């Protein structure tokens, strides 16, 4: 039986660097720099930084009619008000932005303005250890603690070495998903130094607020008690989301919007209690510095550049 059906094929536009653009209905433009991912390997830092550079370039144009832009590790989504900006008109704008982010050299080198924030972490704190202990039946290696497991699969002899690796070099937030404040970040280190770990077999129904977790090659700080399948490393005493008072420099509710760079600093139980009390009293001063992230300088020597960023902190 043959039936005459008018078929409409999906329509795509390729941008420089093999990024794929398509329209999400009449209000959204979706661009993907990477279209597939191996959860065991995780995300490519270079692509995630290119996304941030492109999104920053777009924001600097201050175009009327853009209602929303959200980035991920692999791409970004733009929401437009079609009455003010025809989404089709974004194609040439994005071709130019991608060209610059991918081929930029010298004075055209891609950069973006952001800040670096120091986040104190009580690694191996009793609260997350206790939660982890209650969910061993969902863990890929129930005989070990989360920290022991992450250390072992990354070739460290001790948990201390893992903590050193996790806190020595900064991370950059390149995706907020699931709930406000859930800042998924990638470590600014060479590919072979990325910490990679399988996630829980099924998500824990509990994760304490402030828990620092690692899954695949991303670290997150849980904004609130919620289910999660990340391996628990410790806990941060600083709240990362606050709709009442606002934590961002611009008064936004988030402490760690993309592309904030985070430097984790190990603290002990007394350090945790002291900072938590200061946060509750509103007297905690966050160690933060404005930076300009330079993709070309980072690519030239990742570790040296990461150290230089950390050097900007007090």
């Amino acid at each position, binding site marked *: 039986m043959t039936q005459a059906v008018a078929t409409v094929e999906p329509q*795509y536009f390729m941008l420089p660097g093999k990024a794929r653009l*398509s329209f999400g209905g009449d209000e*959204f433009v979706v661009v993907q720099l990477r*279209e*597939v991912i191996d*959860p065991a390997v995780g995300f490519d830092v270079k692509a995630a930084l290119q996304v941030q550079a492109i999104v920053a370039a777009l924001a600097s144009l201050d175009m009327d009619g853009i209602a929303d832009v959200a*980035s991920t590790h692999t791409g970004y*989504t733009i929401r437009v008000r079609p009455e003010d900006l025809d*989404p089709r008109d974004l194609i040439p704008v994005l071709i130019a932005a991608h060209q610059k982010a991918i081929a930029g050299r010298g004075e055209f080198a891609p950069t973006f303005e952001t800040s670096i924030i120091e986040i104190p972490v009580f690694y191996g704190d009793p609260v997350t250890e206790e939660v982890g202990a209650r969910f061993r039946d969902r863990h890929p290696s129930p005989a070990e603690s989360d920290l022991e497991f992450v250390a072992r699969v990354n070739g460290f002899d001790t948990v201390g070495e893992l903590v050193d690796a996790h806190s020595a070099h900064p991370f950059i937030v390149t995706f907020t998903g699931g709930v406000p404040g859930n800042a998924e970040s990638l470590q600014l280190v060479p590919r072979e130094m990325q910490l990679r770990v399988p996630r829980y077999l099924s998500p824990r129904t509990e994760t304490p607020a402030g828990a620092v977790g690692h899954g695949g090659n991303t670290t997150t700080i849980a904004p609130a008690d919620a289910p999660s399948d990340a391996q628990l490393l410790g806990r941060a005493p600083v709240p990362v989301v606050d709709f009442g008072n606002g934590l961002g420099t611009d008064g936004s509710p988030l402490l760690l919007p993309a592309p904030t760079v985070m430097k984790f600093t190990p603290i002990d139980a007394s350090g945790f209690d002291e900072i938590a009390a200061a946060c509750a009293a509103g007297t905690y001063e966050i160690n933060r510095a404005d930076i300009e992230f330079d993709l070309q300088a980072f690519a030239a020597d990742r570790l040296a550049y990461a150290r230089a960023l950390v050097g900007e902190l007090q």
Partner: protein
Amino acid sequence: MITIVDPGVRTTVQDLGRAGTMAMAMPPAGALDQFANRIANALVGNGPKAATLETALTGLTLTTDTDCTVAVTGADVDVLVDGVTHPTWTALWLPAGSELRIGEIRGGAHSYIAFAGGIDVPVVMGSRATDLRSGVGGLGGRALRSKDMLRIGQRTRAVEEGRHLPMRLRPALSASEEIRVVLGVGAHRLNPESLRALTEREFRLAPDADRVSCSLVGETLEIAEPEDPEDTRRPDEVPLAFPLGAVTVTGGAPTCLLRDAVPGRGALAVGTVITPDLDLLAQVKAPDEVRFTAVDIDSALRLRTEHSDFVRTAIRAIA
């Protein structure tokens, strides 16, 4: 003050929703059926930004301690004031001490109850809409419960009881809706037969729909296998800031992401419902039938303009 006697299946404070919060994983929220919400406000003389109550299916019962004008739009329901049936899409007088109840539902899924003056709850990130996921907006960021009390804002102008939207301009609710989508994002990563099935087969609403998503039951849609069997990379593991109305494939079933959906992973987006048809999607319920029709971006933008013109015509026609 109005007092919730029984919140029914799910009642939340909603409005136009939020823009500019996608990057922080805060959903747009807002009325699932924007047309019904807009008309409910217009009927009682409110501006477009006023907050209304959105209630799923039936059962909402509330009382008022002040005289007010209300209108119920959206689903085809019995509107009962102290037990007496009144019409939908019509401004009604609700005297102090009376009880309003959403009774039998014959068609559709969501009703909007607008009060002259609007529901007065604090504005969070530019909107009064309840964001159930972040727990903000509306009343305490949650669905309403019995004994909850809500203030009504200052009425801006008096309207006459009986004002209504003419019959010919009311949506024809159907248990079989055609929903138009723009294919894209990861559509090329579906098996070609599955991509065809998406727009050629009929699907039925599954019973677990909420404000985040509605999943559909029908032919299983398959993601194409990689050419190299050793390739462990997957397209549905890629995180995505999903467009509002994204049609995603999770576990072989298509799912439409609604106004409370946030960026995430674990689903392959293959298309997006066009804005006017999100209102239709708000009014289907299990086991209603949905057929997806693919439209290109040019048609999607033309249909949007036509719909905007229609909304303006409808507001002008309220008499």
